[in-house]
């Protein structure tokens, strides 16, 4: 597993005091609709994979499912984008440069334990699955994914977002 030095630097930069960290977390919990956006607003999904091709293809699928998409090409960027863009859900690859998906999951969950994160990896061993679920991942999809798997994952994110808001979020 990669060192989290790079991620610590990111977090320190964005919230250098514990009060800052609390503010960061408080902000993170506010969903778009709580800030005045319409309830049926598009889900904003952050996808993180080092493969440009995979990001393009995943973006196409998610956009067909009515989501807006933000891309990150490694785990470090995923953490930065997650803090900056406050997505409704995250889809994370595991084997990535800089910071791997497991470490990125840990930091993203540390900042916001409620954010739905779907792991997308070629290594779907039971150990890996259990490890990520214990760390708070909502689901684990083994590559190559099918459009149906992504559609189900998006539905799960949507349900979780709705439950957190206490609203009915129509699919």
């Amino acid at each position: 597993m990669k060192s989290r030095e790079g991620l610590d630097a990111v977090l320190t930069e964005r919230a250098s005091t514990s009060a800052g960290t609390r503010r960061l977390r408080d902000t993170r919990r506010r969903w778009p609709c709580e800030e005045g956006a319409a309830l049926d607003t598009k889900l904003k999904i952050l996808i993180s994979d080092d493969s440009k091709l995979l990001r393009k293809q995943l973006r196409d699928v998610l956009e067909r499912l009515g989501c807006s998409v933000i891309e990150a090409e490694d785990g470090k960027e995923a953490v930065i984008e997650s803090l900056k863009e406050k997505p409704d859900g995250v889809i994370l690859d595991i084997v990535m440069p800089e910071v791997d998906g497991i470490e990125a999951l840990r930091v993203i969950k540390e900042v916001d334990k409620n954010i739905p994160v779907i792991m997308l990896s070629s290594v779907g061993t039971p150990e890996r699955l259990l490890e990520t679920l214990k760390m708070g991942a909502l689901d684990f999809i083994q590559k190559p994914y099918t459009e149906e798997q992504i559609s189900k994952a998006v539905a799960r994110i949507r349900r979780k977002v709705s439950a957190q808001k206490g609203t009915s979020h129509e699919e």
Partner: protein
Amino acid sequence: MRSSQDFAQYLINSQEITGPEARQCLQASVGKEVGLPLRALYLHAIKADDLAPLMDLPPKAFRKAVTGRGILSESTAKNLEYAIPKAGLPFAQAMLDLHLADLEKLERLFRAYQKGKDEPVPEAIATLLAGREMERETALYADYVAVFLDALYRFLGGAGVIRLDYTTCLPEEKPRQIVAQRISGGVALVVGIEALEKEFLALARRYSREELPEMDEMALDSMEEFLNVVDGLFAVKLGKRELEVDLALPVNATEMHRQPANLLRLFIDTPWGGFDLLLATDAFI
């Protein structure tokens, strides 16, 4: 009964078919519908002699004839039609269509393949490694190649075979592209795909289902992703034997930087041309 997946490899190993003939059949087998007659022949549900006079019938009439005469029951015919054939049956259908075999020959070959004790893929690897004193690697490489060829059929929609008549498909002077990935932990293995640009692009297009007009980041991504997916499947297989492994990031290069002593280079032929599958326990790019 043995799956037909490795039927083509069996034919190559037993010299029932030549390398160039195998390539012809591979190309003709892509998307090939396998009719009820061949499915029934493979499962010994019908004999070549009974089949021959019915072969010119259109599919519906054939079904009616064999069920009407009690050669096949309705339920057997239905089950055969719904079964998804593995790679060997479209290949056999192509042999039949290209007149490289008749029904009688196929019946004999199916029986011999099903009775065979040796698995064709490990047998091919053992043949190529004979005399190299690599017993430990032979089993590991064979395990990996079986997963690789299965994935090739599942994700690219066409079979691959190990050619035994050449050890490489790559001419010396032409520019080539390599993608590789290291598997570490429970086993140490580095695998790679090396191909000329034309074949590399053809495979990349096939896997990604994208146009990929030229060799660029997307084409490399496609083949790296394919390798990553195959290695993930191999990791799952190893996991069942309680061998946990990690996958490194896939890498690419235009030439090999090292020639590890236990490097195995396999010429894999596919409907989209040949490439070399590289296996070693140390890095080569």
